[in-house]
């Protein structure tokens, strides 16, 4: 990649204040998640220890004290019902949320790129078969399938990895369709014909003339997939089919919140705000990347999205 092609991208991204704000939040979240053990050590708590003495058993377990029982020892209060430390659960929840969504995105993009390339550069039969498969996966009821799969996978399988794989395997269709379309249109360009005429082997032609042209749209698409995966993980955990207790997750905290929000609003607003900030930050960054990488790509993306490559939906 010539440096002259990457510099203007960074410059355009830097000029986009919303995207830079998104980037800052994303970096902060990543640091927080990575430093989760450090944060909890600093506070002197851990995410799984019960503190029965901090909740009021007469009211069914409402934390004692204002703001969810926030104190010098529990900076953001404790969980109603169990008295577990909220800050510790939030930062460990960030670990789950970010690792699952990043992992799922990697699986989606890797699978999608592979299948899309095979369809776009392969022969007609391969294209027909793979395109049909893409249509099928895109049409699949993603969330339903993800929930259902939880019923048949043995409980011993590590849940975060399972979530990553399930979201990844169900959500590669959009990327594949994008890559196939791009590969097909790039393949028909004359500079690819010129490379063939020079006698170059097909892999050399693909590597030099086609793959570099795919980088920008794939990165853009991946950046837009990410927030969807954050939402999907939170949704599955909210429904109780995501990560298993006692592992902490934002979605799980929110599902518990349904019964607590009148007695302890802090406990609802913290994970809700964090989830919202995460998704918004990733979305802003993705939008910024999209315009920075290719200011004219808007219409192309709209078209691919309008043909419903909405991912594991969020209803």
């Amino acid at each position, binding site marked *: 990649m010539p440096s002259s092609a990457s510099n203007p991208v960074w410059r355009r991204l830097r000029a986009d204040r919303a995207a830079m704000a998104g980037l800052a939040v994303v970096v902060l979240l990543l640091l927080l998640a990575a430093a989760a053990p450090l944060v909890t050590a600093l506070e002197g708590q851990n995410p799984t220890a019960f503190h029965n003495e901090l909740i009021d058993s007469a009211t069914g377990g409402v934390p004692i004290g204002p703001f969810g029982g926030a104190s010098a020892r529990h900076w953001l209060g404790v969980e109603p019902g169990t008295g577990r430390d909220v800050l510790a659960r939030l930062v460990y929840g960030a670990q789950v949320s970010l690792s699952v969504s990043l992992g799922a995105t990697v699986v989606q993009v890797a699978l999608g790129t592979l299948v899309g390339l095979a369809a776009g550069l392969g022969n007609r039969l391969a294209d027909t078969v793979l395109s049909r498969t893409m249509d099928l996966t895109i049409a699949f009821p993603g969330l339903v399938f993800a929930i259902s799969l939880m019923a048949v996978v043995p409980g011993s399988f590590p849940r975060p990895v399972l979530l990553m794989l399930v979201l990844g395997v169900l959500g590669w269709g959009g990327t594949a369709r994008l890559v196939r379309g791009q590969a097909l249109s790039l393949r028909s360009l004359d500079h690819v014909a010129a*490379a063939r*005429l020079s*006698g170059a082997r097909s892999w*050399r032609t693909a590597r030099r003339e086609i793959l570099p042209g795919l980088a920008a749209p794939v990165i853009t698409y991946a950046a837009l997939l990410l927030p969807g995966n954050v939402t999907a993980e939170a949704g599955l955990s909210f429904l109780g089919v995501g990560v298993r207790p006692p592992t902490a997750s934002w979605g799980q905290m929110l599902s518990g919140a349904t019964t607590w929000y009148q007695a302890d609003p802090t406990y609802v607003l913290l994970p809700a705000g964090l989830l919202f900030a995460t998704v918004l930050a990733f979305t802003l960054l993705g939008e910024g990347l999209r315009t920075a990488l290719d200011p004219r790509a808007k219409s192309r993306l709209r078209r691919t999205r309008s043909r419903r490559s909405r991912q594991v939906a969020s209803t």
Partner: protein
Amino acid sequence: MTSDLLEVADLTVDFGAVRAVDGLSFTLAAGRSLGLVGESGSGKSTVAAALLGLHRTSGAEVGGTILLDGTDVQQASDAELRLLRGARAAMVFQDPLSALDPYWSIGAQIAEVYRVHTGSSRRAAAERAVQVLDRVGIPDAARRAAAHPHEFSGGMRQRALIAMALACSPKLLIADEPTTALDVTVQAQILDLLHELRVEHRMALLLVTHDLGVVAGNTDRVLVMQGGRAVEHGPVAEVLGAPADPYTRELISAVPRLDARRAASSVAAGEVLLSVQELRKEYPVATRGLFGRRERLAALDGVSLDLHRGEALGVVGESGSGKTTLGRLLVRLLEPTAGRILFEGRDLAHASERELRPVRRELQMVFQDPLSSLNPRRTIGDAIADPLRVQDRIGEPQARTAVGELLERVGLPADWYGRYPHEISGGQRQRVGIARALALRPRVLVCDEPVSSLDVSTQAQVVRLLAELQREFGLTLVFVAHDLAVVRQVSDRIAVMRAGRVVELGVADEVYENPQHPYTRQLLAAVPVPDPVVEGDRRVARAVLASASAVQ
């Protein structure tokens, strides 16, 4: 009140910091015609749009005065402008497909315009639509009015757009490159139609075009534009016959002449080098029915011809004639459905990519669109060096030297190795394409419309370069193009193609001066010539030819 229908004084149009039109003044009397000529970027289309106040919504800044049929376009309110647009001055655009709403039937679009301006009933408007469609030569207009734009051919669409312009009987017709997207025979029909309508309705015409030939036959006066300014303005016979301005002179001399004989070929044609026999190429089209058999369309329908060592063969034809398919088959970018491609006696028709690899260096190609034929992410030096790296496995220093020499040979600075395609002009890109094709010293060079995306002056330079290189390298040249005049400049022999077949094949001068096939005659008669007197005669000749073929 003056007698002029249109008065433009000191017109300027600015797009941000860029001044597209810079102090233009002209007048157009009722019933007269003016040609606005210039190369791309001269600002001619911007002027056309400004006349109807179409820049209002675009953020461009328009200065000066435009007085159109008593309305001051600059000062008029939006409502006043709407009364002008379409009713007293109508516009015809370059690309008739995108200029019409794909969701509405042709008749409905015309009727809508008529209703907006006359307030007539739906029924009367529909009748008017059929009437004008019939007038512009749409057969079975009453039925075809219900068709959508995509169901019409390019020429028919342009007729429909002209019908729309005609609907409210405007005093001025503004035609912005009305025939640029059309084949030459269709172009002639559309121009003849415009001419007829103008005479019949006493309409004034402002014709915007890059083609001096189109101006010659269709306008009384010409205004030549360059970089947003008028460089010459006068009666068409004077400007084209005795241009005063050096730019105009250069422009006119760059226009390839249909009747100019080529200097005798310097390379003596040798034995047969490449020969195709009964070549066919079919493409599958949409399957019919649920289990119906797949229908196939023959892009090339049995073509046989021999290419002699050192000769230059011109292949001409309109869109859909199969000329590009033939060119790509000759270098085996495509695999034929049937037939043989013999190169030095070897049949390459179904050779595998591996078998082709050593032959590739002998058969090279220059592509039509110089932008898409260069990888935007790689430098032009890499593009030229790639064939050498692949075939000769040469090292970097040799590649640099070789690229430098090639760049110099095609008239570019030798040290441009590190430039990117977007940093250079269209003509320069096409030179890079030529250098790349020549890198391996091929024996056969197929040029597919190598100059059709270039301005006329650049076109002439590139054609000259190709002719030189052919002599110098002893190339066997296949020059595929739609422009008959350009092809004549470089070709020893000519193959005229139509609907996938070669209808006439012969020595260039004979084909041009004594065409045998009726299609060749029709094609030659349709080419506009930048000489108003000649064009007048040719219009008559076309009418005779058309009525003759109608009798047949």
